């Protein structure tokens, strides 16, 4: 039935109302989430929530701090804005939130890997005025303080622990393969030889896992590549990735090629997991949730935080791990001084430049970082203490097996050159690794590809070595 033109008539008086309503709707839509500072009594805290639903280490810890904070500050409220995403997507989401005062939380959890990049973008607030008045800051170790410092010398984050890396090995498989239970390799070849022996004597297990390629992201760069690369220098001090005195990134080094050759050897000789498993984005979860606990993996080059998944209440309890797994430091390439290598990173709590309640946010940091709370956190997430008073406390040192081993590694650890170009440099490293892992590229070609990417990523600030 055709609609008569007059049919619209009765609606006419309502038109202005309709228009007003629509505009009001448009206004609300554009103003949605109108600033974290809209309520001066509420602070919004963003953090990375585990993608594994059974793991609630961070959630539990923060809920406890919230209770303490709200009790100590009557009338103030804490609201959590958890971001449930894998690492690489967490950064992206966070950076998008930090861009606008409408979405910026009051407190964010920042990976030291990206903090300089975010500082350069002007996303974060310098904390120096707060730190000057905070007595506990003196307890933090110097290396950790460096991790959250911008190129302008100001501090932009409070570290809540650090981490180190080493070799985890299954004593059971080692016994089967006739290898010692107190295994301590001296060179890269010792590591490869052990893997070769295992391949021969225990063919049904994966001899050695080293993360590789783009699917695992920064884990490939840090847990594998840099653990190798920083062991190629002669003195254990020079940075093989970035020349601090020249302020330039290092291209074309022999150490880079040697580290790639190690990765190539692992996958070419089938000492590692099947390449298709190694390049599965979920391989990290499998290593700690499946392969290690089920005795399917002999050696894993991985981080100090692994036991947080195996603690009671974590969802994948494995209390026997300390009897079943051995720990060894990653050796330098040819056993040159200092003999062992580790890399350290960690996360910090930072206040966004566009936060609405920065003062209250710092109060929350202070609550998190009392000695008792900090210690509780280090133990809960298998972190390494960055506070002197905690590191010396016997109740921390004895809280878990492994803490002493990984804390001792701090003496021979390296921090990444986390300058703004680093995330791109890291991706270039992963691409080179992926090339040699799949066998699509020779070490020479992959290293050449890296040098080209590096030039683009670092704006030609490159030095040949």
């Amino acid at each position, binding site marked *: 039935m055709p609609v008569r033109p007059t049919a619209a008539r009765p609606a*006419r008086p309502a*038109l202005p109302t*309709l*228009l007003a309503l*629509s*505009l009001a709707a*448009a206004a609300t*839509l*554009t103003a949605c989430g109108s600033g974290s500072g809209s309520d001066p009594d509420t602070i919004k805290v963003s953090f990375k929530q585990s993608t594994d639903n059974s793991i609630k280490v961070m959630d539990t810890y923060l809920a406890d701090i919230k209770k303490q904070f709200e009790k100590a500050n009557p009338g103030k409220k804490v609201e959590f804005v958890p971001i449930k995403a894998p690492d*690489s*997507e967490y*950064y*992206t989401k966070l*950076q*998008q939130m930090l861009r606008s005062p409408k979405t910026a939380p009051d407190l964010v959890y920042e990976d030291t890997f*990206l903090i300089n*990049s*975010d500082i*350069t*973008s*002007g*996303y974060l607030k310098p904390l120096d005025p707060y730190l000057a008045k905070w007595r506990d800051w003196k307890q933090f170790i110097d290396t950790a303080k460096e991790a959250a410092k911008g190129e302008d010398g100001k501090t932009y984050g409070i570290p809540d622990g650090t981490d180190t890396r080493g070799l985890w090995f299954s004593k059971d498989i080692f016994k089967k393969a006739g290898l010692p239970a107190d295994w301590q390799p001296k060179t890269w070849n010792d590591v490869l030889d052990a893997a070769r022996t295992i391949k021969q004597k225990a063919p049904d297990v994966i001899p050695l896992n080293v993360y590789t*390629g*783009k*699917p695992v992201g920064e884990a490939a760069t840090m847990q594998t590549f840099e653990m190798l690369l920083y062991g190629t220098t002669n003195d254990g001090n020079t940075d093989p990735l970035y020349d601090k005195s020249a302020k330039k990134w290092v291209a074309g080094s022999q150490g880079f090629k040697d580290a790639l050759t190690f990765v190539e050897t692992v996958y070419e000789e089938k000492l590692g997991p*099947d*390449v*298709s*498993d190694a*390049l599965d*984005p979920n391989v990290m979860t499998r290593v700690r949730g499946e392969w290690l606990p089920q005795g399917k993996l002999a050696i894993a080059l991985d981080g100090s935080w692994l036991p947080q998944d195996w603690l009671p209440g974590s969802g994948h309890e494995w209390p026997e791990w300390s009897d079943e797994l051995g720990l060894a430091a990653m050796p330098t390439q040819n056993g040159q001084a200092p003999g062992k290598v580790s890399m350290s990173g960690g996360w910090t709590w930072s206040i966004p430049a566009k936060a609405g309640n920065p003062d209250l946010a710092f109060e929350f940091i202070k609550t998190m970082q009392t000695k008792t709370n900090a210690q509780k956190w280090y133990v809960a997430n298998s972190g390494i203490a960055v506070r002197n008073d905690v590191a010396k406390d016997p109740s921390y040192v004895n809280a878990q097996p492994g803490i002493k081993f990984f804390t001792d590694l701090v003496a021979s650890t390296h921090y990444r050159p986390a300058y*703004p*170009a680093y*995330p*791109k440099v890291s*991706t270039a490293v992963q691409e080179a690794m*992926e*090339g040699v892992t*799949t066998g*699509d590229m020779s070490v020479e070609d992959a290293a050449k590809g890296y040098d080209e990417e590096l030039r683009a990523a670092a704006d030609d600030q490159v030095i040949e070595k």
Partner: protein
Amino acid sequence: MTRARSLSRSLTRALPVAPAVVLLLLFLAGPIAYCAYIAFTDLQLTGQAEDSFVGFDNFRTAFGDEAFLNAVWLTLVFTVISALLGQNTLGLGLAMLMQRASKPVRTLTGAVVITAWVLPEVVAGFLLYAFFRREGTLNAILDWLRLPTQNWLFTLPILAVSFANVWRGTAFSMLVYSAALNEIPKEITEAAEVDGAGGWRRMWHITLPMIRRSIGTNLMLITLQTLSVFGLIWVMTRGGPGGKSQTLPLFMYEEAFQKSMIGYGTAVALLLLVVGSLFSVFYLRLLRTEV
């Protein structure tokens, strides 16, 4: 009717549309224009204090970037295999078979195919990841048939994701073609049958020409849909291994959000838009001729 009255009348008539137009300008045209602008800057998500206008630099970078060219090639392969060959022909075939099938068969086939279409992209992605992975269903079947197995997502990633897209998208083409086939008057087919035209001849000379417009519309729609598929590939392979299934949307995501190069990523998005328009223009011309 005086001019003033007619003006006021047309204004009154335009009034109800005004909020919609304002909203469209605000939420659709605004962001698109902003995106087009960003494509000519070096805006980054992080690591940069200020962005600046760089002209055509991003586009020059793209055409000199092997990874970009690889992504363009894979996007074309993905679109041709999954949309033009897969969804289109399979959808047409199914629609034709269903014309003749009995009611229960028709209902059952329809239900199965449409379920795949209704499933959210990510769920479909996980289902097909489970189908193709090394311990997956496909290999279990092959193993049972004593055929060699392999990790399909690793050895033939672009084919695996193309197949996944065919599985998911066939329903759409089937619905379009079913509707078109129902429109063909029975007398014409019957007359052709009486004249002694066999099945193939009837299809070639009657059915296909009569549904030509639907073919064009279907091709255009599924091409545009397929060009922008992201979730399915992301879930199944993340564009890997080694970029072997990295189509343009994934390449764009990596550049924009993982390497933080928003400006460059947006430029790639604009190029994707151009590819889409080229396809559209091609189909539109195809539709216009011989009408």
